[in-house]
């Protein structure tokens, strides 16, 4: 009975995580000490959320049914992956993390990309809130049967 609402709830969680990840990226846009690799600091790497349709009920019968009827129950976050694009470098000789030539490696975070992601997540979140409201209204409406 609450399948639809649960599906929407999973999407709200996923979109919130997307938003959090984008915030984390923005906050660390100039963090030069993200992780220690072989005794040297590596700048922060941009993180991204990957999502896939959620299929509950992991039994043989349910797999068969899903294959036949293509049922899904919301969305699930399959992981947070790191963006492997190269780091930006900047000439800044006075920086404590500069190499011998005075170049500093900076995170591969592009604020513009993050903003686009934030806007996408916001819009999707809003859409799911609308769906949730509609669903709730329908359920409450059905409760009225036989009352009057």
């Amino acid at each position, binding site marked *: 009975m609450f399948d639809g609402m649960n599906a929407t709830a*999973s*999407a709200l969680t996923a979109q919130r995580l997307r938003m959090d990840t984008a915030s984390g990226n923005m906050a660390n846009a100039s963090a030069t000490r993200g992780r220690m690799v072989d005794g040297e600091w590596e700048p922060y790497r941009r993180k991204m959320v990957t999502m896939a*349709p959620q299929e509950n009920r992991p039994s043989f019968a349910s797999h068969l049914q899903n294959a036949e009827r*293509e049922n*899904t129950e*919301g969305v699930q976050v399959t992981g947070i992956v790191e963006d492997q694009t190269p780091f930006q470098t900047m000439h800044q000789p006075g920086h404590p993390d500069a190499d011998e030539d005075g170049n500093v490696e900076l995170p591969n975070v592009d604020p513009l990309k993050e903003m686009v992601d934030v806007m996408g997540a916001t819009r*999707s979140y809003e859409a799911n809130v609308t769906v949730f409201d*509609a669903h709730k209204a*329908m359920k409450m409406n059905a409760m009225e049967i*036989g009352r009057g």
Partner: protein
Amino acid sequence: MALFSSTIDQLHNGLDGAELRQNTIANNIANADTPNYKARKASFEHMLGDARQQFDSQKTDGRHVDFGEGHREAYTSVDRSRSYNHNGNSVDMDKEMAEMANNQIYQSALVDRMDGQFGNLKTALGGQ
């Protein structure tokens, strides 16, 4: 004489269908950002009324496929050929939202009618 008319059964079918459609739309919108997700479509209108086709058929062999006997229940279908997004996703947000508004009104109308049916029953039982 049956206490509940067939109208109530049909309204019931309609409400079940509206719920299936709502769940399908909820899933589509939940997966609006999922790569390679294909939007599903709920079909149930064929269950309403007595529109199901009744074939006058006779099986001459046990291996023959059934004709009009079991009618198909509500189902969801996927169109794999479409894509609205560069990542293979085919959810059209505007379409889904419009569909949901339609479904809401449809369900509301059904609930109203169902309520009316019970109201009639009540009046009849009250004997006034």
